């Protein structure tokens, strides 16, 4: 876990980096999903609203949607995790983001996001 992450109750996170946000799923989610075999990411340039599904993770058992913690436009997608889903088991959150987004989200959109300690409490 990275202490500056903000998380959703559905186990996505955002991590501010310069003027952008990295968006991905937490280690807890990765562990719960089990063997992840395929990841489908959106096209660069796509706009998503908060809570909209933007990616799909296929584990051996099922397909799961990944939802946007805040609204934004996709600037970059992490092709490396598409080609090697095993990278998600890497400890470093910098390598396993799904998309980088540009966001004009207002404070209201951040209101229900959990900080590090609240999220840890949530999953315990």
């Amino acid at each position: 876990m990275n202490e500056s992450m903000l998380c959703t109750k559905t186990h996505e996170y955002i991590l501010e980096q310069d003027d952008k946000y990295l968006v991905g799923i937490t280690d807890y989610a990765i562990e719960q999903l089990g063997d992840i075999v395929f990841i489908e990411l959106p096209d660069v340039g796509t706009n998503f609203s908060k809570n909209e599904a933007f990616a799909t993770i296929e584990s051996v058992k099922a397909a799961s949607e990944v939802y946007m913690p805040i609204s934004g436009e996709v600037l970059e997608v992490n092709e490396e995790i598409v080609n090697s889903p095993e990278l998600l088991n890497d400890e470093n959150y910098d390598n396993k983001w799904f998309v980088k987004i540009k966001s004009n989200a207002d404070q209201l959109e951040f209101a229900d996001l959990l900080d590090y300690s609240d999220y840890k409490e949530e999953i315990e």
Partner: protein
Amino acid sequence: MTKQTFLHDKHIKLGARMVDFAGWEMPVQYDSIIEEHKAVRNSVGIFDVSHMGEIIVKGEDALPYLNKIVPQNIDTLIPLKAIYCQLTNKNGGIIDDLIIYKLEDYKYLLIVNASRIDDDLNWMVRNKLGFNVDIINESHNYSLIAVQGPKSSEFLKEIGLINLPFFFSIKRDELFNINVWISRTGYTGEDGVEILVKNEFSEYLWDKLLEAGKEYNIKPIGLGARDTLRLEAALHLYGNDLDENTTPIEAGLSWSIPKDKNQEYNGKCIIENQLKNGIEKKLVGFRMLDKSIARHGYDVYFNNNKIGIVTSGGISPSRGDNIGLAYVKNLDNLSVGSTIQIMIRDKLHDAEIVKRPFVTKRNKLK
């Protein structure tokens, strides 16, 4: 309330993730589904399948009674042999698929799906009129442990099962001084056995098998890998690939239907008509031509027309691609080699119809 098998505590101690399956709290995986899958394809795995049902049919009319409720010819079954059957309704639809074992004259054991025990018993009792038989549900008295994999027979011989029963046969034997029934059957496409044991001995037997199997790298296997293994072997899953509106002919099970059975059985008229005049829908196997994964319930297209539905789909750890089973319209130009499309999240993805099973002993990867 969910039921637990007598091995429940063992699964928890082994770190299994438990899920609800057909009203039972069962291990879906202990470790990684893919690693468990490979253990069964390469060596030996052990499964708790105690949720499955055991029904005894015995009495003077056991034989004609069974001949009435399944399309198969039970006359040909000799003691200690088994046969794969379907319990059919009046329309030829499949109420359950099961294995019938002849234990002795006038006494048969039926092993049925956990999710169908109650429906099976109801249907069997409704068909009992005029037959002198007893139908006894023994499901709550027995645990079932499957040992599967290419090294399973070597392993079992080493622990004292010198003469294993032949394929689709059953035998009374002793294992670690416990009385068991050993059946040479399974749901993985590998060699192996299913061991029927009284509940009170199941924990002891489970521990002994795991301990003795260490040198074979024996692994406990959850329902997750059980599903990927059976899919590669193109073995049907009741509720996905079989249901009461699907006949054995439509399900690709014609090989199991005798063409010359004289006795009446439920659905005979429809099943014989389908054998003679053909069917409107058929089961096909397919492999995805890209990295996407088809799942149960996805639509199937051919030349831009919706022609069917995926009933089972997932990854094939042994092949390295993604596979599935689908029911499609029985079109003449749709056969092995045809390209179909699967609708996955609003996009069509190409798939090729391929022969079943997807994995045979010859083509499996090490």
